[in-house]
């Protein structure tokens, strides 16, 4: 198990190197294949009517004047060792892990990401609890009462949940709940959990619901299908033949087998949301990782884009590793 984890951690590092390479090609090299030159790219970062010297300075600062491979190695090296930037007037010390410096808003990338993480984490954690619980519970109930009114109702709701995008659901819920009756805070309000837990919880209810609804719908269908599969297994019949109560047969024997793959998928989905719940963050104007990603793309903020992409990718590959380990713990037949 331990050697497996160590081996996989190396693979994770390798994978992230590849991700960084591909992202850099996309953000730095591909514009040049499309006719852009280092000069035209640099122009976006200096004021109006720039002097040639200013443009040259930006080209040098971004490393556009060096070969791509050197830029790439340099980027990786600064992540590990840190570096010092100069914005022309003063030196900025960027400590490891240094993901670069955003010349757009004069901020270091890594601390910015860390600063936005609590928002995204708040969204992901609450929504994760909601969608896992409601998804599994309604999928379970549907499978056990297959063909019943409850089953049909939950399948219709699930279909609705899968088809309703967040940006449609959000106004649908917030118009009556936040604007008309003022039961919940209006979108755009966010207080950190540490400063006011009660307000934080109220602020989060709508974003959680909007994000969780679609995913809960997906998990309902997954759980239902998985349970129906497992319920026809021989070992479920054995459990009944032993004289166990139906409740125990369902919860201890059938669900135990059906939930394992669902937990796996949950790990991946949760990591994806942690890498930025873009639609929810934009819809509710919550400044999390997803919001940061979108604004940095809109601003052409290359270092920030690179940083966010790498950060999200790291979450996903690490979640992958975690899921594999969890699978081995959950299923005794799996050996790592």
């Amino acid at each position, binding site marked *: 198990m331990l050697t497996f984890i160590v081996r996989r951690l190396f693979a994770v590092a390798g994978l992230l190197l590849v991700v960084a390479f591909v992202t850099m090609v996309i953000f730095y090299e591909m514009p040049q294949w499309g006719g852009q030159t280092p000069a035209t790219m640099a122009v976006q970062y200096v004021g109006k009517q720039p002097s040639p010297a200013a443009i040259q300075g930006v080209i040098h600062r971004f490393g556009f004047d060096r070969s791509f491979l050197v830029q790439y190695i340099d980027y990786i090296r600064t992540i590990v060792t840190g570096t010092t930037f100069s914005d022309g007037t003063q030196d900025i010390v960027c400590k490891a892990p240094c993901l670069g410096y955003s010349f757009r808003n004069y901020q270091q990338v890594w601390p910015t990401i860390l600063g936005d993480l609590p928002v995204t984490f708040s969204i992901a954690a609450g929504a994760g609890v909601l969608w896992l619980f409601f998804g599994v519970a309604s999928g379970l109930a549907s499978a056990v009462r297959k063909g019943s009114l409850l089953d049909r109702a939950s399948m219709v709701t699930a279909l609705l949940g899968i088809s309703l995008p967040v940006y449609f659901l959000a106004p649908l819920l917030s118009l009556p709940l936040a604007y008309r009756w003022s039961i919940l805070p209006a979108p755009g309000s966010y207080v950190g959990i540490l400063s006011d837990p009660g307000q934080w919880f109220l602020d989060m209810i709508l974003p959680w619901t909007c994000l969780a609804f679609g995913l809960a719908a997906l998990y309902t269908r997954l759980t239902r299908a998985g349970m129906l599969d497992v319920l026809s297994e*021989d*070992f479920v019949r054995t459990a*009944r*033949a*032993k*004289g*166990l109560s139906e409740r125990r047969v369902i919860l201890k024997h059938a669900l135990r087998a059906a939930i394992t793959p669902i937990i796996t998928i949950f790990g991946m989905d949760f990591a994806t949301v942690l890498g930025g719940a873009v639609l929810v963050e934009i819809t509710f104007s919550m400044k999390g990782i997803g919001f940061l990603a979108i604004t940095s793309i809109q601003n052409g903020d290359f270092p920030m884009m690179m940083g966010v992409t790498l950060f999200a990718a790291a979450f996903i590959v690490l979640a992958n590793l975690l899921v594999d380990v969890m699978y081995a713990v959950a*299923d005794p*037949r799996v050996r790592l």
Partner: protein
Amino acid sequence: MTAGGERPFLDVRDLRVHFPTDDGVVKSVDGISFALERGKTLGIVGESGSGKSVTSLSLLGLHRRADRKGRGGARISGGIWLDGQDLVTASAEEVRRLRGEKMAMIFQDPLSAMHPFYTVGAQIIEAYRVHNKVSKPVARKRAIELLELVGIPQPNTRVDDFPHQFSGGMRQRAMIAMALVCNPRLLIADEPTTALDVTVQAQILDLMRDLQREFDSALILITHDLGVVAELADDIMVMYGGKAVEYGTAETVFRQPEHPYTWGLLGSMPRIDRAVQDRLSPIRGNPPSLINVPAGCAFHPRCPYTAETGGRSDTEIPRLAGSDPGHLVRCHLDPARRQEIFTEQIRENL
């Protein structure tokens, strides 16, 4: 009839298990009757789809019953009396309490019949604790005891192994241990050796015979393999198309089988002492559909002797009858003629 008194330990009367489907009613079991005393073994023999497994599952009450309108599950009628208690009219909860405790089942494929995520010990302990209010350590001791009884080496450590860490034979032994843990008086084994290596089959059959003697339980052995039945059974019931076609003591059914289908089963059994150039004689045709059972005798499309029934074979369902009350046959042929055919044409080829 008073409960328990004169009634056999297990008494099944005119049991019918029908499944309504969109295509029609599947008559998996269509009026079978048998009786079984403790310490005795009944072998139920038949091809796939003859209704033998459905019979065993209905004894344990493992079919989902149809609702009042007769939909969504099995329609079960007739009577199943276990130790004087009628299981057909009993509530689901009453039957559940009996399952595992008074009647237990050994399934065909022990790998898929055991939960892959729980240890063998945990599954046996669970089976014991459903019906016995004891602490986990006590139940664990009992599980180890049972594992030792069924011949698992080092039961103290193997008890914590998962099913996939056992060999096929060991798994079936563990399955038997799980079935026996509450000391059931009726044991149903559904193809207990089919999934096992031939070398292991004999061991498992020996084990079952020994344990049956020790526990003095009634044993129903369901199989398509007449060799297995010959080893263990006191009585044999041959099923075809949801009905019993021949029912008698093992001795008579093997020595003087009278139904053409039983002849066919016996003829398709490989024998080591038969000359190599003799082909096995399979029964021609396929088992009947249980939705559209052939009219008259269900076996008539495959029977070589229909010409001798005077046209009754496809119009009239033969009754299960016989001159000897210990040997019943469902066939239009005259008993004397059946015996003649067997003696003159069949016996030498078996």
